C-alpha cells in the first residue's frame, strides 16, 4: 500500500516561501512525476514527503496515517538520490543490506533479499565491489537495490538520472518503468526533464514557484494545458506562442500551437515567414521560421524537409489543435 495525501502543506525557510500551500492526492501504485524548472520546489516537496524536511504547516499522511511528525525511517518510504548517496566504504552487498541490518533482519533473510535484488538489477557479479569501482549506471542500480530490499510502501526518486549520459538515461528510464510494472508500488519521481515526465508517468504534477500548476496524465497535459506555463513546459520542441493581431483573430490574448501541429507550405497559408535554421534529426526536421506576425516559430516536419535557408514559406495551424489563452494566462474553453 502506498497512498499519500498532502493537505495544505506549506514550507518556508525563514522569510522565503518555498511551497505556499499544496493539496495533493497520490493513489496507491501510481507513478507520479513532479516536474518543473529548477528552484520550483519539486525536490523540497519530495523531501517533505520523505521526512528529510519538516513541514511548516499542513499534514502529510500515508495510507491514512498522519506521518507529518514522524522521522524518515518510520514512514516506510525508500529514496534514491541524485548523487546515488551510496556508502563508499561498503561493498555493493553491504550497501544493499544496510537498511535490512538497521531493521535487525536476520542474516539468512538479509542474504536472500540482497541476492534477489541483485538478481533483479543485474548486480550479482558486482556484489563484492565498492561503489567507487562501478560505473554510473551500476551505482544507480545499487541505489535502487538498496531501496527495493526494504519493500517500502512508496519509492521516492530525486532526479535519479541527471548524472548519467544520454544513452544510459534512456536505458535506465526503461528499467525504472519496468520495475514499477513489476513491483506495482507507488513511485514519486522528481525531474526537470519533461521527456522523462512524459514517458514514465501515470500522473504528472507540474510545479512552478512552489505552486501546482496542473495535475494530470501526460496526454491530458499535452492536449489541454491549463495555462501558459504548462503549455510552454510540456512538449518538445516547445509550443509556439503568438500575441497581438494573430491572437485577436481567435478571440484570445495569446494563442499557442505546437511545432507538430503546424503545416508548412511554399504556396500559401496563415502566417508568412522565412526559413532560418533547420535541425535535422533524420526522422524529423525542426525548422525555425522567422514569421512576420509571430516572430521565430518552430515547425516539426516528418522526414527530411527539402527547404532551404532563406526560402519564403507559409505556416498554417491545425485548427482543432490551437490553444487559446486569456489575459490571465489561463486556457480559454
Amino acid at each position: 500500500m502506498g497512498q499519500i495525501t498532502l493537505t495544505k502543506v506549506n514550507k518556508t525557510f525563514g522569510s522565503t516561501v518555498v511551497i505556499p500551500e499544496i493539496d495533493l492526492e497520490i493513489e496507491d501504485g501510481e507513478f507520479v512525476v513532479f516536474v518543473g524548472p529548477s528552484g520550483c520546489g519539486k525536490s523540497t516537496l519530495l523531501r517533505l514527503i520523505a521526512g528529510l524536511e519538516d513541514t511548516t504547516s499542513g499534514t502529510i499522511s500515508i495510507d491514512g496515517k498522519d506521518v507529518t511528525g514522524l522521522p524518515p525511517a518510520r514512514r516506510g518510504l525508500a529514496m534514491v538520490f541524485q548523487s546515488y548517496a551510496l556508502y563508499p566504504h561498503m561493498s555493493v552487498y553491504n550497501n544493499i543490506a544496510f537498511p535490512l541490518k538497521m531493521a535487525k533482519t536476520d542474516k539468512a533473510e538479509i542474504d536472500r533479499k540482497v541476492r534477489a535484488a541483485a538478481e533483479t538489477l543485474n548486480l550479482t557479479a558486482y556484489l563484492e565491489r565498492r561503489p567507487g569501482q562501478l560505473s554510473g549506471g551500476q551505482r544507480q542500480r545499487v541505489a535502487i537495490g538498496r531501496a527495493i530490499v526494504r519493500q517500502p510502501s512508496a519509492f521516492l526518486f530525486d532526479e535519479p538520472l541527471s548524472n548519467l549520459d544520454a544513452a544510459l538515461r534512456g536505458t535506465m528510464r526503461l528499467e525504472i518503468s519496468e520495475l514499477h510494472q513489476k513491483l506495482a508500488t507507488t513511485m514519486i519521481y522528481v525531474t526537470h526533464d519533461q521527456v522523462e515526465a512524459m514517458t514514465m508517468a501515470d500522473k504528472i504534477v507540474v510545479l512552478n514557484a512552489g505552486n501546482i500548476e496542473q495535475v494530470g496524465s501526460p496526454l491530458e497535459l499535452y492536449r489541454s494545458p491549463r495555462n501558459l506555463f504548462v503549455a510552454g513546459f510540456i512538449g518538445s520542441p516547445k509550443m509556439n506562442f503568438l500575441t497581438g493581431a494573430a491572437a485577436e483573430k481567435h478571440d484570445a490574448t495569446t494563442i499557442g500551437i505546437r511545432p507538430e501541429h503546424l503545416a508548412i507550405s511554399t504556396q500559401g497559408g496563415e502566417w508568412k515567414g522565412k526559413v532560418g535554421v533547420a535541425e535535422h534529426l533524420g526522422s524529423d526536421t525542426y525548422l525555425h521560421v522567422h514569421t512576420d506576425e509571430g516572430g521565430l516559430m518552430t515547425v516539426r516536419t516528418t522526414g527530411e524537409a527539402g527547404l532551404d535557408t532563406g526560402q519564403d514559406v507559409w505556416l498554417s495551424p491545425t485548427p482543432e489543435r490551437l490553444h487559446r489563452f486569456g489575459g490571465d494566462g489561463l486556457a480559454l474553453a
Partner: protein
Amino acid sequence: MARAVTTRRKTIATAAAWLIAFVIFFPILYTVITSFKTEPEAIAGISLVPSGTFENYVEVQTQRDYFRPFMNSVIMAVGSTILALIVAVPAAWSMAFSPTKRTKDILMWMLSTKMMPAVGVLVPLYLIFRDTGLLDTRLGLTIVLTLVNLPIVVWMLYTYFREIPGEILEAARMDGASLWNEIVYVLTPMAVPGIASTMLLNIILAWNESFWTIRLTAAQAAPLTAFIASFSSPQGLFWAKLSAASTLAIAPILIMGWFSQKQLVRGLTFGAVK
C-alpha cells in the same frame, strides 16, 4: 613545436623543483653531516666531507640522557594530539553538520589566536604555570601543546567533515539508521582518513614545537626540542653535538613522516586538490 616547448618547460620546472627541494633539505643534510664531524671540524668552516666520527652520538647518549627527553616528546606529542582530537572532533562535527549563523565567526576567531605572537602571552602563562605548579611538568606542557594546536586541528577536521556529502547521511536516515548507527556505520568510517591525517600532522607539530617547550620546562619535562637547545649552553656552543642531538630528535618524526606521507599530503591538500 608545441610539444618541444612543453618538454623544455617540463625540464625547467623539474630542475627548479629539485633545486627548491634541495635548498629546503640542505639544512637537514648539513646537520646530519656536521653530526659526524669533530667539534674543531664543525666550527672550521663549510665542508661537506666529515671525518666520520661517531663520538658525538656516543657522547649525546652517555653524557646526557637522550631517552628521557625522547619519552617526554612522545608522551606530549601523542598526549596533546589525543586531547586535541577529543575536543576537536565533536566541535568540528557540529560545525560541519549543524552550522549556525555564527559558525564561520567562531572558526575565524579560533584561527585568529594563531595570528597572535606567542610571546605576547608568555608572562601571564608563565605566572599561571608557576602558581599552579605546572612549570616543568609533562601535564602542563601537554595542555599548552593541545591548546596551541587546537585551532588547526578543528579547522582541518571541519574541512574534512564538510566533504562528507549530506545526502549520504540522509540516505542513512531513510534506511532507518538511528543517530548512533549513523555515527558508527556511516560517518566514522568515512571520517577516519581525515582524522588520521589530522592526527599525524598534529603529532609532527607538537613534536617540533619549541617556543613553549623550551620556556616552560627545565629538566623534568624537557622534550627533545629543549634537549637540543641545551647544547647551546653557557659552557659553549657545541655544534657537532648539537647536530647529533638534532639528528636524533628529528629522526623518529622523519621516519614516521616518510611512512605516512601519502596520508599527510592528502590531508594537507584536502579540498584543494582532488
